[in-house]
């Protein structure tokens, strides 16, 4: 494709997009189709709506699901570790459909043109209102990672999202990246903006000195004559995965024992339905569901898994549903319970993709979003370059967006090797699309964005790769952090996810030569978690590179040679 000139390329795209529009016209014209997707008949008498990990994406976007999401040990071949056709088969979704596009990476660029953008708070608001009209007193739960992920969230210190969530009518929320605004800012928002509107819940955040709870652990409501409780669970490894100096006086952790105590407490207070609003990540939620009893559903996020149906986990006290509702504003989950005779009799669950061309934008929300973006519009809209290929992030080992960031920081900083964090947020760019400054910020908008250049020995490099790899592939989910493997530029390596910590990473080679343990190498990176780290914001480094290149050719992904993953349904 790189040999094709720009004019030919754009003509081809135009043709493709016309074809896409034509394909799309049929389902749009067939009146029944929209209703079929969003026709979720009310069931029972207790209702929850749930979105998670929207990462501050106020407007419709593209988001490609991963083609590598390996499950190891007990998670092998089970949801959420299914990709592409394996996922469709497991959940009975027909290939080539709108739903297949929402839940998988399959034929992404073409299908994205056919079905249009996903998410956006204005379209989400329309669906929320529609569902609320049928479900009186339904609670809207936000799983967190809401105040971070976009330029405007960063520049307004999270305020744009706080106000958007209030307008959307969020009732309760959980948290993770919120804390990277700093402990004082979080407390300011909770005390000033959210008070009486949105409950900020976290049973597992305590003070480091006395272990006092920092936030309300749970909230109870009477819904249509039934007492319900929602318990919050913040991301347990926030001070490890993100800079600890941003919340130095607070300690997190999984805290199963305290979770059990909270469940018992709300049950004793009369709760007939207990939901955990979790930011654990799905693998941790599945394990927690097997250990803590008395929870009806854990509605989860963090790992960004769009899982069409709940996983039912049996435990000593009965059973617990575990759900995960994807990311970037792409989905809204609806969980209905039929509660009679003081207990849950049955349930219905649906994870609804938000297709922005099927759900009209809510006028009030559009007006709000336009207003909040107005002061930044010129900067957001700056076109930095045009991408010839698809740019995406998700996947266990690398994504084309990350490869672009690696290429940029290595070239600009003159490094041999590049490291880019295994974040799972960040929107997708279609072939032929212009990369704006806003798109670049979708990948990089964090409060510790420093680009770094370090000298590291071969041994240090190996230690880092092993350490991060164990955070992804430790056989015990409680030792995982839920991110993806660090993206590596320049250095070739092999990876055996099923091996033990310390022996997963082998065959490390730089430009054909084996990496030497004692030799020093120049390593470019960004997002250092250590206190006192400095550097130019990574977006400025990458923006310079993009402006200079103007046209970004399709990226060649540097991926490890995988050992022992053949036949794993989590890789395609």
């Amino acid at each position, binding site marked *: 494709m790189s040999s094709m000139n720009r004019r030919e390329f754009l003509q081809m795209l135009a043709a493709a997009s016309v074809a896409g529009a034509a394909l799309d016209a049929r389902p749009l014209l067939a009146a029944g189709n929209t209703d079929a997707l969003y026709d979720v008949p009310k069931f029972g008498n207790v209702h929850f709506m749930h979105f998670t990990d929207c990462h501050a994406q106020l407007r419709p976007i593209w988001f490609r699901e991963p083609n590598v999401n390996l499950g190891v040990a007990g998670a092998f071949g089970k949801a959420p570790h299914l990709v592409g056709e394996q996922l469709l088969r497991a959940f009975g979704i027909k290939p080539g459909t709108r739903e297949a596009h929402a839940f998988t990476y399959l034929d992404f660029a073409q299908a994205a043109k056919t079905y249009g953008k996903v998410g956006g708070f204005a379209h989400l608001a329309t669906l929320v209102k529609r569902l609320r009209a049928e479900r009186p007193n339904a609670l809207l739960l936000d799983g967190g990672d809401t105040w971070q992920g976009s330029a405007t969230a960063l520049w307004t210190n999270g305020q744009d999202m706080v106000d958007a969530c209030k307008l959307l009518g969020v009732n309760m929320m959980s948290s993770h990246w919120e804390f990277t605004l700093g402990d004082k800012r979080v407390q300011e928002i909770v005390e000033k903006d959210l008070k009486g509107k949105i409950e900020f819940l976290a049973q597992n955040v305590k003070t480091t000195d006395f272990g006092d709870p920092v936030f309300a652990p749970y909230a109870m409501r009477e819904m249509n004559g039934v007492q319900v409780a929602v318990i919050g669970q913040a991301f347990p490894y926030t001070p*490890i*995965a993100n800079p600890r100096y941003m919340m130095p006086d607070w300690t997190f952790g999984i805290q199963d024992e305290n979770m059990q105590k909270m469940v018992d407490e709300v049950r004793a207070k009369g709760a007939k339905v207990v939901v955990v609003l979790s930011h654990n990540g799905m693998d941790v939620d599945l394990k927690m569901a097997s250990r803590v009893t008395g929870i009806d559903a854990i509605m989860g996020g963090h790992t960004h898994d769009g899982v069409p149906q709940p996983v039912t986990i049996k435990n000593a006290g009965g059973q617990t549903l575990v759900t995960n509702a994807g990311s970037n504003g792409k989905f809204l989950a609806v969980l209905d319970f039929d509660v009679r005779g003081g207990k849950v009799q049955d349930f219905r669950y649906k994870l609804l993709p938000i297709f922005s061309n099927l759900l009209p934008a809510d006028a009030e929300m559009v007006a709000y979003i336009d207003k909040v973006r107005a002061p930044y519009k010129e900067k957001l809209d700056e076109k930095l370059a045009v991408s010839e290929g698809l740019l995406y992030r998700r996947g266990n080992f690398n994504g084309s967006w990350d490869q672009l960031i690696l290429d940029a920081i290595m070239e600009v900083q003159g490094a041999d090797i590049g490291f880019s964090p295994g974040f799972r947020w960040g929107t997708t760019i279609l072939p032929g699309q212009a990369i704006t400054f806003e798109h670049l910020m979708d990948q990089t908008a964090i409060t510790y964005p420093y680009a770094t250049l370090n000298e590291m020995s071969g041994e240090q490099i190996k230690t880092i790769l092993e350490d991060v790899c164990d955070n992804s592939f430790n056989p015990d989910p409680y030792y995982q952090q839920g991110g993806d493997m660090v993206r590596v530029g320049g250095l070739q390596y092999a990876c055996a996810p099923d091996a033990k910590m310390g022996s997963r990473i082998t065959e490390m080679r730089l430009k054909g030569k084996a990496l030497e343990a004692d030799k020093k190498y120049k390593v470019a990176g960004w997002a*250092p978690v250590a206190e006192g780290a400095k550097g130019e914001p990574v977006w400025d480094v990458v923006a310079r590179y993009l402006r200079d290149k103007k046209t970004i050719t399709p990226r060649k992904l540097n991926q490890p040679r995988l050992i022992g993953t053949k036949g794993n349904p989590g890789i395609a």
Partner: protein
Amino acid sequence: MNTTRRTVLKSATASGVLAGLIAAGALRPTQVLAAEWNKAAFEAHDTVGALKGIGAGAPADSKDLILKVPDIAENGAVVPVDVISNIPNTTSISILVEKNPSPLSASFDFANGALPEVSARLKMGQTSLVKAVAKADGKFYTAQKEVKVTVGGCGG
């Protein structure tokens, strides 16, 4: 949060700091309680030597010895460890970090029916098994759990 208690206790942190330093190994217990200093046990460079030093040999696993440690340490320099013994007549509790240069990190004696419940902050240089060992009626019991120490970053 109990802010009143926090303010009151701020004036009393001197003793807290002292306890922390002992736990972290910065202040050798010799300086505090010279008479009881079990040199052989605290200076042993492996778990076997440390256990031998406290007279434990091969302690039996016990579910009545509760060891509370994080799965992943938020800060390897101060890993919170709580040990509670529900074994009747517990007279001592020791805490060992297998991969530390000197595994025995703390040892507590309980006299006259004192409640066998301790809390400490330990320094850990790397991922390691943490062991609690309790002595009751002349016998030794143990519980253990792995605590991961990681370089951090790159999550979610």
